């Protein structure tokens, strides 16, 4: 596997604000990579540096084997971009914008353009100023998805879409994966990332705090356990990996690090288990834990 995007030690400041602080990011060719983070974490800044729209203060960024600042035009021939804030020219129709961006990119796949317009239920005859936020986003999505490029860079592409269109979007991204394209999907919608992404990087305050496959990340999460025991719980308090323990008589509730599950369960069994419910770890918990730490 080669890296489609490889970023290391990236720093970008805007006046006194340090938007990116020693950022590392690695996106493998052919994968759908989730780029998760709250508003203002530095997702769009990273993407704009990758597109050569901003210049990094220090660190290196490689995109499809080239330098995003120096080889801008050559690299842009091989990628398509959907911005988070899609603003269209008020007097151009959606169809005109799709065709313009396609032509600038060196041509677009006409049958796919028609197919996507149908799937997204987008009327290409409307003028830019009459589209809603979601429809403007669809214009940018159709333009990007109907061009034959190696890499798709999508910055919160579904923030204005309704749940039906969100489903269409997920289908489309799965199609792109089958075509062998690389996708960098910035998002703060966890369900979307869980449904689509092979690997995920979580950014916080301009710094990547976790990166890995979903199952790797799940190992970092905690399982919630609540149980009714035959006798009083013994020794749970002192066990490594047990958090937020609440004991009321023979009932216990606690959270346990996923990699400490086995010894903790053995300890429970030694007290005799009457009922047991466990909630599987979700990405959301990991996500929230990282964000709450940030506060």
């Amino acid at each position, binding site marked *: 596997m080669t890296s489609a995007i490889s970023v290391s030690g990236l720093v970008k400041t805007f006046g006194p604000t340090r938007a990116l602080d020693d950022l590392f990011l690695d996106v493998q060719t052919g994968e759908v990579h989730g780029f998760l983070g709250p508003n203002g974490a530095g997702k769009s800044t990273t993407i704009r540096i990758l597109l050569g729209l901003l210049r990094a203060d220090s660190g290196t960024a490689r995109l499809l084997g080239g330098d995003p600042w120096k080889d801008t035009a050559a690299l842009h021939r091989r990628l398509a971009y959907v911005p988070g804030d899609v603003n269209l020219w008020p007097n151009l*129709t959606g169809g005109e914008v799709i065709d313009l961006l396609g032509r600038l990119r060196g041509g677009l796949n006409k049958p796919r353009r028609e197919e996507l317009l149908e799937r997204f239920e987008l009327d290409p005859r409307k003028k830019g100023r009459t589209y809603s936020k979601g429809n403007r986003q669809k214009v940018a999505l159709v333009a990007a998805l109907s061009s034959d490029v190696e890499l798709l860079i999508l910055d919160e592409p579904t923030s204005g879409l309704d749940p039906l269109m969100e489903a269409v979007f997920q289908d489309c991204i799965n199609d792109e994966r089958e075509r062998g394209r690389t996708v960098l999907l910035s998002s703060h919608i966890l369900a979307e990332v869980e449904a689509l992404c092979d690997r995920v990087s979580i950014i916080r305050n301009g710094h990547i705090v976790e990166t890995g496959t979903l199952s790797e990340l799940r190992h970092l999460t905690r399982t919630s356990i609540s149980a009714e025991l035959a006798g009083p719980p013994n020794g749970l308090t002192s066990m490594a990996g047990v958090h937020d323990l609440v004991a009321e008589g023979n009932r216990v509730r606690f959270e346990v690090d996923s990699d400490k599950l086995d010894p903790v369960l053995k300890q429970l069994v030694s007290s005799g288990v009457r009922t047991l419910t466990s909630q599987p770890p979700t990405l959301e918990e990991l996500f929230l834990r990282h964000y709450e730490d940030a506060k």
Partner: protein
Amino acid sequence: MIGTRHLVRLALRRDRILLPVWVLFLVGVTYSTTTALEELYGTTESRALLGVTANANSAFLAMLGPLHDWSSLGGLVVWRWGVFSGLFIAIMAMLVVTRHTRAEEEAGRTELISATVVGRHAPLAAAVIVAGGTSLLIGVLQALVLMGKDLDASGAFAFGLSTASVGLVFTGVSAFTAQLSENSRVSNAIAGGFLGVTYLLRAAGDAAGESGPQWLTWFSPIGWTEHVRSFADNRFWVLLLPLAAFVLSVGVSAYIVTRRDVGLGLLAARLGPPHGTIGSLFGLAWRLQKGSLIGWSIALFAVGVIYGSVAQAVGQMVQDNPTLGQIVSKIGGAEAMVDAFFATVTQLLGLITSIYLVQAVLRLRSEETSFRAEPLLATPVSRWGWVASHAVFALAGGAVVLAASGLGLGLVYGLQTDDLGTVGPQMLGAALAQLPAAWVIAGVALLLFGLFPQLTGVSWAVVSVSLVITLLGPALQLDQWMLDVSPFTHVPKYPDITFGPLAWLTVVAVVLLAAGFAGFRRRDLTT
């Protein structure tokens, strides 16, 4: 209407530069015009002479209207400046109203405001208060300027209020056109078109003097200002007409506001083509800029035609009048006076064109701040190409606009003097000689865009300073080094056009442009 007070404060805060500039400009011109006329026509004889020529010359009548009272300085000021003062105040009112109503709605900000404790009519009311209030303020200050020149108070206020009344009418007109379309440019275009018709109706009514269709002027808000006959009769009752028009148009607009959805207009948006033919940055820039280029070309052609038609009258005036003829013959005769007239006019055309150039360059910045440049620059195009696609409209487009004005001048003057073959190319050349100076101004705008994107608005200050220095500098007897600040000072005066200064002005422009290009290639996109 709840919340109007806060919205007025918001509008004043947003326009804290724009409005004072308008007020200072219009009051300043009133002062300088009065001073100039005082010096030029100090004696009763010279005024009587002007009175006869002004009312007998259809070009003057069409451009400025009749001179009702030549006996007082106030009457001369009303004649020379009244129509144009009204025109400028109307433009100010139109831009302010649209900016705070339809443009806000189009940008989605009205939605944000309307969701707070703000009455349905508050945004419209605030815009009307700000635009109407500024019109009245300008009118009152103009009156005070005239009173400061020891002119009769009732005449001064008749003048001030009549020019302000045009602002009030167009406050109402723009409040109405803002209801029609979803697009603020269209609102301005409709209101601006109506202003043009208003001026032309009055020009047509006045041009033939008493034998012509003078009743036409009663249908024009600018014509009403003439019927007030400031300083001559001070007919204040005529001002009831603009007042009624203001109340009626604002009332209708307020009624429409209660009937329509926020964000929508009365004119339904039409569907466009499902497929596009634009395939390049230049194609896109052409689509975005052509309306402005064509509009400016037509407008400057028209300005050229108007001035071209006055030129002959300048010569005629001397021939008709032996006294004036004697004076003028000392400075080179009627021909020299016509040449001086053309030198001034072409300089003015160059200055007006520089406004177009700056506007064309600043389109780059508005594309950048509205995030529309971003998806374009994420395609395989160079930054250089994107800047060039718009800059070409400033550079080559400026040539087109100036050529149109030169053609207008040359065509009319050439036809009048039966010498189109000579005069046409001469006027075209004289107009195009202004191009390098206009390029310098465009160069400054591009330099700011490339190196200091947050300061691109300073370009307008550069334009204004050049305008003031060039138009008023000699009259204000500024030092030479101050005059030299404006690139237009360095353009050789018609008819002695030499290429040396034009060449070095072009070099300066090229250096500024190159620095702007280089700066933009190295900087971050910012908003």
